[in-house]
Each structure stands twice: as C-alpha cells, then as structure tokens.
C-alpha cells in the first residue's frame, strides 16, 4: 500500500495542474494510494505513523530536496520503502538516484527497483545528502589522527550522496557513492575575490566510517541537508544500507 505525502508548499494553486497529472498517471499505473497534503496543522511524522498503522509499506514524498531530507529522518528507523516524486528539475537527490521530475517519476515508481542506500548519522539524526561546516576552526578527529584546515576560510562537507564538486581531475564528475559504506570528508579552501567567493580546486578528500568533529575554540555550526543545525562537538558516522529507496535506471551510482 502506498502513502503519498505532498509537501506544504504544493498547496499553492500553481502546482494544482502538475499534481492532477501525477495523480492521473498513478491511477493509470495502478499504484494509487492514500494522499496526505501537509499543512501547518498536519505534521509529517504523525501522517507517516498513522499510515504505518494502516498497513502502508511504501511512502512517496512529493516535493523537493528539503521534503526528501525531512522524510528520511522520520522513516530511517522504520521498515518501509521510500519513493520520491520531484516537482521540479532542481532536485539533486532525484538526479542522483535517477528519478525524473513530475509525472515521469510515476513510471519509475511503478517499476519498483528498490536499493538499500547508506545514510549519514550526526549524533542521533540522519542525513541523506551532506553535512557542512563553514568554519576553519573545526577539527576532524579520526580517532588515530586529526585533520584541521590551515587556511582562514574553508568549507568542510561530509558527503553521503553529494557530488564531490571539485576540479581535481581524478574526482571530476565522481560521486560520493551512497552504497560503499563510507562517507567522505571534503575540505575546500575558499578563495575570496572582490566580487565573489569560490571554492579552490585543491580540495582534500578523506573517506571514513566514523569521526568526531570538534573545534579549536568556540563551538562551530554543522548544517545537515541545508536544514537542521548542530553545534560541535558532534559525532558523524555512516549507517550502512539504512534506507530502502526506489531508484531509476538512470541513477548515478
């Protein structure tokens, strides 16, 4: 049984047509299920827990990357499969797992190619994409050795699904693979010019399973999937094969 969760921003009338087309396509493919539209009064966690009580085995999140990141945290500990329908073509998660936008995603859902992928875990919260620290005061403690940036400004990204967006030829167009049982710590110094800030090409890449992130002085901020925020010290680890997710043939891993 399927449960479709529409994110709150989809209540805007400009999405009505698209949602109609998605619903029609789901009906054609005979994978229609219960639809829940989130709003200020309807919490995603409650909706999913109610659905599971009623026998839901697959939850499909309809929205954008923020929607998918939120839902991952809720269902990570549950024995259900996640499907996603991105409403625009800006979803990085959808691109990596090979799900096209809009009603085309319904066909991929119907094929039901399910993969178990890794999740990152920061303290007790999961993340699917990446955790970022924009502070050179951070220290990554790998138990036997410690790493610290030597430049004044740098961005540290802990990537699970994220692109390693570097110009280093070896890693060009290469992904942080979400099925390898490893996370990658990517440290990129920032070059500041008068008009812009750019990541330098000479990044550092460290694959790992578990690290502690601390700081040299004041606690630094760790942002996961561009939404939740933690203060150091935090522990980051990999939760291997934690999430069952419907993927497409055009996935990038």
């Amino acid at each position, binding site marked *: 049984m399927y449960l479709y969760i529409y994110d709150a921003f989809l209540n805007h009338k400009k999405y009505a047509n698209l949602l109609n087309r998605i619903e029609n396509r789901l009906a054609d493919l005979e994978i229609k299920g219960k639809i829940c539209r989130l709003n200020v009064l309807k919490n995603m966690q409650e909706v999913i827990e109610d659905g599971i009580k009623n026998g839901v085995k697959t939850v499909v999140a309809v929205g954008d990357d923020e929607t998918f990141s939120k839902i991952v945290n809720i269902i990570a500990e549950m024995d259900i499969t996640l499907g996603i329908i991105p409403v625009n073509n800006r979803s990085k998660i959808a691109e990596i797992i090979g799900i096209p936008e809009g009603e085309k995603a319904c066909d991929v859902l119907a094929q039901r190619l399910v993969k178990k992928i890794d999740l990152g875990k920061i303290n007790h919260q999961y993340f699917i994409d990446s955790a970022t620290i924009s502070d050179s005061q951070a220290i990554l403690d*790998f138990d036997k*050795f410690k790493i610290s940036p*030597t430049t004044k400004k740098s961005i540290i990204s802990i990537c699970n699904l994220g692109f390693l967006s570097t110009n280093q*030829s070896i890693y060009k167009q290469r992904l942080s693979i979400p099925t390898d049982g490893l996370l990658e710590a990517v440290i990129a110094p920032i070059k500041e010019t008068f008009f812009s800030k750019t990541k330098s090409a000479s990044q*550092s*890449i460290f694959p790992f399973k578990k690290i502690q992130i601390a700081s040299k002085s004041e606690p630094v901020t760790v942002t996961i999937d561009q939404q939740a925020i933690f203060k150091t010290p935090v522990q980051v680890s990999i939760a291997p094969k934690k999430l069952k997710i419907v993927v497409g043939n055009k996935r990038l891993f």
Partner: protein
Amino acid sequence: MFKGDNMDRPSKNVETIIGPSVKVEGDFNGDGDVIVEGIVVGNLTTKNHLKVGKGARVQAKVTAQSAFIAGEIIGNITAEERIELTASARVKGDITTNSLSIEKGARVNGKITMNGQKKTEPAEASVETKSK
C-alpha cells in the same frame, strides 16, 4: 610512468587526498592510494601508492607499497615495490625499497637500503628459478 608533477595520473584507487590547505596530525592509515599536498606530522601508512606532491611537507615515518616523492619528507621511508624521487624531492631519513629512482637535483640525507627481493607470486617465483 610518472610525468613530473602531473596530478592527472589516472587511478582507480584514489581514496584520500590531503590537500595543501590541510594539516594531518597522528597515525594516518589508508587502504587506497594517497596523495599528499599538505602537511602530515606523525606516521603515514598506506597499502597502495603514495604520492607526495611538490610543496608537501611530511614529518613522518612513511610506509607504502610504492611512492612518488616530489616534496619534503623528514622521516624514514619504506616502500615494498619502488620509490621515485623527482628533482624537487627533499628527503631526510632512511630509504628502504626494492627499486629506487632518483632524478638529478633531488636531495637525500640518509641511508639507502635496497633489499633486492621482489615479493612475487609462487608461479612467478618458479619462472625466475628456471631462467637461472
């Protein structure tokens, strides 16, 4: 095999890159290829290839399967297969390996020990015996 400081050497095993903006302190232990362009203090061990780029500073006991060195190393280096030192290499420590190549201009201050023994598979070993 290697051309100067060219970082474009294709490799399927690249796992760790210690960039120029990073300092590693402690016992670094890697399974895949390691590229060092920054600072390493402590021990540096990898089961695969190690590349120490020009500008890198390593103050560590280094152990690898093979090593290409264009930077500065203070500490003993052991490589099971081979070590290649470029003109910009500065080594202060003992070198132990089976095969060594030193480009003109490289500086080495330390003892060099060549074992002259290749770690070979049993099949290859028998071929060697026949050729003798």
